[in-house]
């Protein structure tokens, strides 16, 4: 299998699109490079991006920017120039305008539109290029009932808007069916924490029930529209509530035969093998059709989990070495693929090795390529998506939708990921040789 993995990996790598020569993208790339080289500068830039939507004027924006940069010891020349501009009101306005434009541009790279309607053009374009999407509605934290209701209403609107537009998209057989049957064109990912203000780690049932009350109508509508509704996973604090919510809702008679839906397993969690077994066990017992889609991810809340655990004196629930997570990801990939056809596997990773491993493993088990889905994030996995689509694989791009205020937490997480020295994408951009990129973890 290792030989097949290497072959698949090289073949996907060869299909990566050439570097775009878009000057704006090159500028972002430059900023990212600067940020990944200097931790202080990185912190300053992220704090600035984070505060952008809360600034009241260009002047306010520039004052914040220089406030952060002032804490950076060694400032590269472009940053020094920015500091000089901030001495005058006119300079600050110009600096603020330039910085705001930069943040908007970066946000656009990761976020497809402010509303589902705004995003339709981009989504259709991706579909035509051979990639499906899952739409994720970005939002501020839900701390009140009206906020939870608004998020539910936005989910409903997204289902309706996409449901109305999707029939007009051209046929893309790879994206529309696997050997178990048809796959919905419309695919929405929803967050349990956004559907209730009551989610608390020490009382998971309270939030679970309140979120279920809002999730149920969404699932029923998705069923009527023939759409897929995926329930995202967040931090460990909400894991128990999320898992319980999914199983309890899907066991209800109205929902036991649809819609297509899914859950997420985070491979960076030490307990993730048990969690996956629980999902597979449930899927086997329920015999649900269409089968539950299980999206396997590494997990996006690593820093949060480690810091929270350290502050409380707990053993972190996540693997602390990236290599351990990568190994676990491969083990869980195999387990997930073996569980087909009780579940539909979706492998979500930008790591070429992880993706090639899933493809090779699936083939080794005698399964068809179309019974495996690969998922990537908009803005980070676009090149990988194009390469996979070129190989006739089914790839789905996770596309956040929302305005800049709502999207900021998401954007900062993506930027952190993109500038992390540990990330696969970083290695790839630095031109690490293919042997290393595909080496076993």
């Amino acid at each position, binding site marked *: 299998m290792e030989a097949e993995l290497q072959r698949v990996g090289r073949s996907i790598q060869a299909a990566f699109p050439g570097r775009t020569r878009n000057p704006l993208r090159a500028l972002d790339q430059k900023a990212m490079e600067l940020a990944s080289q200097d931790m202080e500068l990185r912190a300053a830039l992220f*704090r600035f991006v*984070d*505060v952008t939507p*809360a*600034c*009241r004027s260009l002047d*306010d924006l520039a*004052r*914040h920017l220089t*406030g*952060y940069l*002032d*804490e950076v010891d060694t400032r590269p020349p472009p940053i020094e120039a920015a500091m000089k501009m901030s001495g005058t009101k006119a300079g600050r306005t110009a600096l603020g305008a330039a910085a705001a434009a930069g943040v908007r541009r970066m946000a656009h790279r990761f976020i497809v539109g402010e509303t589902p309607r705004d995003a339709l053009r981009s989504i259709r374009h991706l579909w035509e290029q051979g990639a499906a999407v899952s739409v994720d509605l970005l939002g*501020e*934290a839900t*701390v*009140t*009932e*009206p*906020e939870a209701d608004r998020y539910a209403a936005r989910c409903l609107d997204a289902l309706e808007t996409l449901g109305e537009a999707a029939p007009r998209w051209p046929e893309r057989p790879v994206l529309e069916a696997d050997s178990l049957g048809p796959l919905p064109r419309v695919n929405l990912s929803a967050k349990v924490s956004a559907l209730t*203000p*009551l989610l*608390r*780690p*020490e*009382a*998971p*049932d*309270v939030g679970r029930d309140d979120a279920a009350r809002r999730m149920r109508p969404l699932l029923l509508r998705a069923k009527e529209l023939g759409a897929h509704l995926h329930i995202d996973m967040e931090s*460990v*604090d909400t*894991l*128990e509530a999320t898992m319980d919510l999914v199983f309890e809702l899907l066991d209800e008679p109205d929902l036991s035969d649809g819609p297509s839906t899914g859950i997420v397993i985070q491979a960076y969690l030490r307990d993730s093998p048990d969690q996956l077994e629980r999902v597979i066990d449930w899927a086997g017992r329920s015999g649900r059709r269409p089968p539950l889609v299980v999206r396997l991810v590494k997990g996006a809340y690593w820093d949060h989990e480690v810091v929270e655990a350290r502050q*409380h*004196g*707990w053993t972190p629930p996540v693997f602390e070495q990236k290599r351990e997570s990568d190994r676990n990801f491969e083990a869980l990939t195999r387990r997930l693929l073996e569980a087909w056809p009780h579940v539909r596997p979706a492998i979500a990773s930008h790591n070429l090795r992880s993706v090639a491993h899933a493809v090779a493993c699936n083939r080794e088990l005698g399964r068809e390529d179309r019974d495996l889905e690969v998922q990537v994030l908009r803005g980070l996995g676009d090149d990988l998506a194009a390469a996979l689509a070129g190989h006739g694989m089914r790839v789905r791009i996770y596309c956040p939708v929302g305005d800049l205020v709502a999207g900021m*937490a998401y954007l900062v997480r993506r930027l952190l990921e993109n500038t992390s020295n540990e990330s696969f994408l970083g290695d790839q951009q630095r031109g690490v040789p293919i042997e290393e990129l595909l080496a076993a973890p």
Partner: protein
Amino acid sequence: MTVSAPPTTDFRNEPILELRRASARESLLAALRELDTRLPLSVPILVGGDRGAAEGVDSTDPGAPQRLVARAGRASEDDAAAAVDAAVRGFRDWGARPAAERAEVLRGAAARLRERRLELAALQVRECAKPWPEADGDVCEAIDFLEYYAREALALDRGRPLVQAPGERNTMRYVPRGVTVVISPWNFPLAIPCGMTAAGLAAGNAVVLKPAEQSPASAGALADALHAAGVPHDALALVPGYGDAGAALVRDPRVHVIAFTGSAPVGLEIVRAAAETAPGQDHVKRVVSEMGGKNCVILDSDADLDDAVPEIVYSAFGYAGQKCSAAARVLVHEAAADTLLERLAGAVRVLEVGQAESFATEVPAVIERDAQERVLRYREAASDRLAASAEPVPGEGWFAPPSVVAGLPEDSPVNREEIFGPLLSVTTVRDVDEAMDVVDSLPFALTGGLFSRSPTTVERVAAWSPVGNLYVNRGITGAMVGRQPFGGNRRSGSGSKAGGPDYLLQFVEPRVVTENTMRHGIPVE
């Protein structure tokens, strides 16, 4: 003198339970079921190893007042005098022991509390209506105090380096003061009496502990742990009872240190009474006081409300606002005011008010009928400015609905006086400078909060703020031993920081010895 790493470098806070795991929650519920079979507990007066009366003070469950949690003795003035008699005797032995031996005893007591931590948390649920996360946190803090002060006492025992000149040897050492009276509140029924008692004992003093009448059983458990670990009975007496016993202890001319945590009126009265020097009293009493607060959170226009709203809600309404550190006021920049108030109000409306034993409960009953009436009185005074409230609340038990009021005039008593309950007042200000003026106008200076993402604003407020503990971009409660030494300034306290490196200095007196090392013109060092 050899310089070695301070002993506190190996100090680690006791990990709180991981309540997001079902198994941890179940273990606490099992401990509560077990405790319930033993109620009411008996808490006798404990002086010199004699178990005195265990009646006169009834401790009940604030959420279900018909439930009797403990029957405790009611110490008289004679009992107080007998306790000081014993402490005078006990001090001779305990104060003479090596610091390392005393430290070991305290760490032994920490181990005993650790073994009983589930049961002790359950006791706070019943005795003080403390919800589980906070009850567990309180037990951990008690353990932390014992571990921390044990290490700090060792550091103190080494004295401090002085400037040395040829022909002389200068040494500075710290010795215990004598009899220490601890008067403790009910809101942290184990941690606060434990902190003050552990500090007194670690420094070598004998302690007389007078716990609040609302929570004698938790204090009884503390005394049991300390005695079982090896603190002699003469060196630690427990005198449950009311204010008359406390006042008698404060007046006693043989008392050297009074460590008090509680309300400002009582604290100021103690300061006044302790200043009187009785005939024959050959020392000045020292008062270590930790009193109230009117704690303000400043929220600037660039604050992240996603973070700020839940943190403010917890700071104001966690344990029904009955923490000295709790948020009483929010001073919000006018540009953020409407959004903040809307979100804050919505978040308060969904607060779960109920019995402390339910993990769902966020806001429990307040401690007693008087407290309930006090909170409702202030709420009534501000009823025309009520922005949100979580209602209805359970009919039985001392419940008060968590409420937010907005736009009260600056001179409203709701804005000026300590309420010590679930009532939060929001005031819109022009900018951070106006917010600082409001903070400056208050007599208290315990904790404060600031939500801002501007480094210049953070630095400006930090440099200026009079409060003892300023929290930036987080909640303003939950100080951790060793990490956030805790204590207020102005009328909030004497400025000492519990759980910090200076705290023990108040329980000792410094002595300097200078020895001439010249003999016949020759240094003989």
